[in-house]
């Protein structure tokens, strides 16, 4: 290859390297080839530390265990409910780092280093959270199975500072299904807290 000059070589090799040096997002093939593959944990039980409702807890969990199953079966926090177990119903809603999420679709091992809050962590001793009181006052449930998830979702909704008209509450609470159909009272309860009239 007579025309493969030193200059061409530098352009082909050095310029991409320079681009990689300037842009931390770009990763070179050489970088990937030079690293060792990651150590891995499991599939049997491995140490997992969780911070749930302000308490730090050390557990032995299989990597496949969900946060929902861990809360209910390992920590006895059965307020968080298992409805569909596939992210469809919202009964398992908890807060992770302050955001509402489906605990059935979360691996416990991936919640390490994060702050988990469940329905049991909402009240201040015997004093109910305003959203819990509002659900009682507005009769926002019948059988109660979806209620912990509804309340956790509603508390997060208020923190998100969305519009609080009926249509907005219905849209932003749509990740929580109530098969008893207590929606009218749920919307009233959520609005009362969101609008400061609870």
């Amino acid at each position, binding site marked *: 290859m007579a025309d493969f000059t030193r200059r061409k070589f530098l352009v082909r090799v050095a310029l991409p390297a320079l681009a990689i040096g300037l842009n931390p997002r770009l990763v070179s093939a050489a970088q*990937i080839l030079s690293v060792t593959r990651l150590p891995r944990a499991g599939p049997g039980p491995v140490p997992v530390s969780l911070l749930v409702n302000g308490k730090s807890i050390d557990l032995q969990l299989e990597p496949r265990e969900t946060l929902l199953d861990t809360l209910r079966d390992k920590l006895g926090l059965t307020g968080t409910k298992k409805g569909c177990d*596939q992210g469809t119903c919202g009964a398992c809603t908890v807060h992770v780092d302050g955001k509402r999420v489906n605990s059935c679709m979360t691996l416990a091992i991936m919640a390490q280093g994060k702050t988990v809050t469940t329905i049991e962590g909402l009240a201040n001793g015997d004093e109910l959270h305003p959203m819990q009181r509002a659900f009682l006052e507005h009769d926002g449930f019948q059988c109660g199975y979806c209620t912990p998830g509804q309340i956790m979702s509603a508390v997060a909704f208020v923190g998100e500072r969305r519009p609080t008209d009926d249509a907005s509450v219905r849209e932003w609470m749509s990740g929580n299904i109530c098969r008893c159909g207590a929606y009218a009272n749920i919307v009233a309860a959520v609005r009362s807290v969101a609008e400061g009239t609870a």
Partner: protein
Amino acid sequence: MNPVRYAKAPSIAEAIATVSAERDALYIAGGTNVLDLMKLDVEEPALLVDITGLALRTIEATPSGGVRLGALATMADVADSPLVRSGFPVVSQALLASASPQLRNMATIGGNVLQRTRCAYFRDTSQDCNKRKPGNGCSALAGVNRMHSVIGTSSHCICSHPSDFATALLTVDALVHVTGMSGNRTIPIDELYVLPGDRPDIENVLQPGELVQSIELQASPHARGSAYLKVRDRASYEFALVSVAAALEIEGGNVLQARVGLGSVAPKPWRAHDVEAALIGKPANATTFDAAARIATRGMRGYGQNDYKIPLTMRTVRTALGLAGGIA
């Protein structure tokens, strides 16, 4: 669900090296698709590589006026981003019409564009599915196919692609930046996906271990004048029957530039080039939009229960063009 091993990746290079070298390894971030399919035994990875510790969550303006979305940005992050809402309304609207607030707090946009079909036969291991088991047959062809595709199908697969977000990306000329064992490359969103043909198990052009790092939205007048319309069985928290992303640049009453994406009618987010061609240079009015909407159904065929999607596509395109063009 099968037992699975787990590794948390401290760097992009280590994540890619690990997943590329190991058969049956999957990346996991939001987990809303991977974990769901693992519970159904549709995905049976031996190793999950957790990429949530990687610095890929930033949403930032690009020098050319676009927006670069880190692949680990959540659907909620992107939907609420002022940069996205002002320059790319179709993207924000599509995300807010997707899933639930909880799932949008979890699911990442990198995972969203690579999510698997919601076909009930794909998700049920007791049924025949060529995507899950090539050569096994397709139960949807003569089955419950109300949610299935009317264009881009093959005799091996008629699944539909469920992503609202990816449908919207078609209309803002999005670029997908990926990295793998052979380095970095950029893939226009419409070139990321492949149609099922006789290999429905192959859904995109990514190599094993290739990782989406970011998705770039390119600024344009049509991106600013865009809208998303999703038709579904219930008003919220439901997959689309038909959805349309429309982006129009209108000047002096004429359409200068147009992009139209169709969702949930094809095995990939479907760019309607012939609809776009029917709009460009024409007056932005009801007559033009009606004519363009009729063109949207060219080449479509139903499989029985989903025949309704063909007229519904026409009407949804018509209404979405009106929304994008401000003459709804």
